[in-house]
Each structure stands twice: as C-alpha cells, then as structure tokens.
C-alpha cells in the first residue's frame, strides 16, 4: 500500500495527494494525520487534491473525517484544488462534504487558515 506524505510548513500540515487512493491508503492517511497534528501542534491542515481524478464516497468521507479529527486538536482543515469534473460528479453522486472548507488553490487555502488563525489570536503561520 502506498502512503500519502505529510509535509510540515510552519504551523500547517500540507497533504498533497499524488497517488491513486486505495481505501487502505485513505485510512492510513487519517491515522498519520491525527498523529502528526498531535505531535506538531499544527493549527491547520491543507489537503491539495488538484492531482486527484476522482472522489468517490469513501474518499469524500475522508475529508469530513480529517476535518473532525483536526477540530479535536484545535486545527482547521481546508481542501484545495478540486477539479471541475470532480466537483460536478460529487454533486451528482449526492455527496456533501459535511461543512469541510474548500478553496480554489493552495494560496487561497493558506490565506483562509491565516485568517482563521488571526481571528483566534494566533500570529501568522508560525508553529505554536
């Protein structure tokens, strides 16, 4: 099984999905992220899906699960880069991402996390 790498950039964990996700990889990513957020005290998670060609119900559910897990560690999650064809398909499939924040691209996603951090009285993207 292939694992999705998690990068730490300041106080943000960046997950860029570059592989064809099998269900085991999805479950492993959820676990790895929980570990990493708790170990690093990251305040944000960005999931970049610009290379992801399909999001089915299992993968879609992962976004909501990761968002819930990160909330437990006082971190926020943004999903960025969804392809238009994926967005159209998700709507028709009937999947709502359960209040997961999304942004058009990485830059906007990072800005959203910065703004949330500022509201919460954190300074920029530095690690806590």
């Amino acid at each position: 099984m292939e694992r999705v790498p998690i990068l730490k950039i300041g106080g943000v964990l960046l997950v860029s999905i570059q592989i064809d996700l099998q269900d085991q990889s999805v479950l492993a990513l959820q676990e790895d992220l929980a570990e990493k957020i708790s170990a690093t005290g990251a305040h944000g998670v960005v999931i970049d899906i610009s290379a992801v060609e399909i999001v089915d119900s299992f993968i879609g559910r992962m976004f909501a699960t990761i968002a819930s897990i990160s909330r437990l560690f006082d971190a926020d999650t943004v999903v960025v880069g969804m392809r238009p064809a994926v967005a159209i398909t998700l709507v028709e499939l009937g999947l709502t991402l359960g209040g997961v924040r999304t942004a058009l691209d990485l830059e906007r996603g990072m800005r959203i996390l910065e703004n949330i951090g500022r509201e919460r009285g954190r300074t920029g993207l530095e690690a806590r």
Partner: protein
Amino acid sequence: MTPRSDGPEELPIRADDDVVRVRQLVRTYAQQVKLSLVDQTKLVTAASELARNTLVYGGGGFARVEIITADGRTGIRASFHDEGPGIPDLSLALADGWSSGKGMGLGLSGARRLVDEFDLDSEVGRGTVVMVVKWKR
C-alpha cells in the same frame, strides 16, 4: 472510429488495490471512445463505488469492461459480478442514504445517477450483478 477486434476485458476484485485497477481500466476505455472529461469522471466514480460494493458486500468478484455500439452510438459498459449473499430488498438498497453497514448508502443510488443506463440483478444466496453504461454524447 476504428473498430476494435478485441473483446471485453475482465479484472478480478479481490482486494483494495483491485478497485484502483478497475478505475484505471474504466478510465482507459472511456478515453478510448473519447467520452468528455466530465463523463469519464462520472463513469469512473460510479465504477469505483460498484467495485467497492463487490469487494465489501459481495466478498469479491470481477469487473468486465467493454466498448459497445448501438444505433450509431458508442459507449462503455462496465459490469460488476459477485457470488456473494445477494441483496434481499433492491428498492431499499437503491434508496439514497440506506446502508446495511456503516456506509452513507450513496454508492448504488449515486452510481445510478452518474450513468445513462443502470441495471441491478441480484438473487439472495446467489450473488449480484450491476451493469452500467455511459454513452458518448
């Protein structure tokens, strides 16, 4: 379009990574007949849901993918076969949001919305076959 001489292709669905291979095979076929990107994505997503059901509920099985033509139209047909427990109540299984497990119950109903033709054939104790078609527009 150049006519294809090779017939349907089959792939086993016995583990997680087989679901990925089924997605890739369906994608290849969809590209070959030049489905639009959105239609490719819809068909592959439907195939992913159905292949996972074959694995999780059907206890494994196989997928068959082929190019079909009818009335001058070209399309892709994908079917998913298992010899698992079957589905006792088809209309319940096809309802949005009904799952016998801990899924969201979107697989069957969602897959049906994503394709042009959908056929579910299941017999308790014998198994399940789900067939979908996406036509080139």
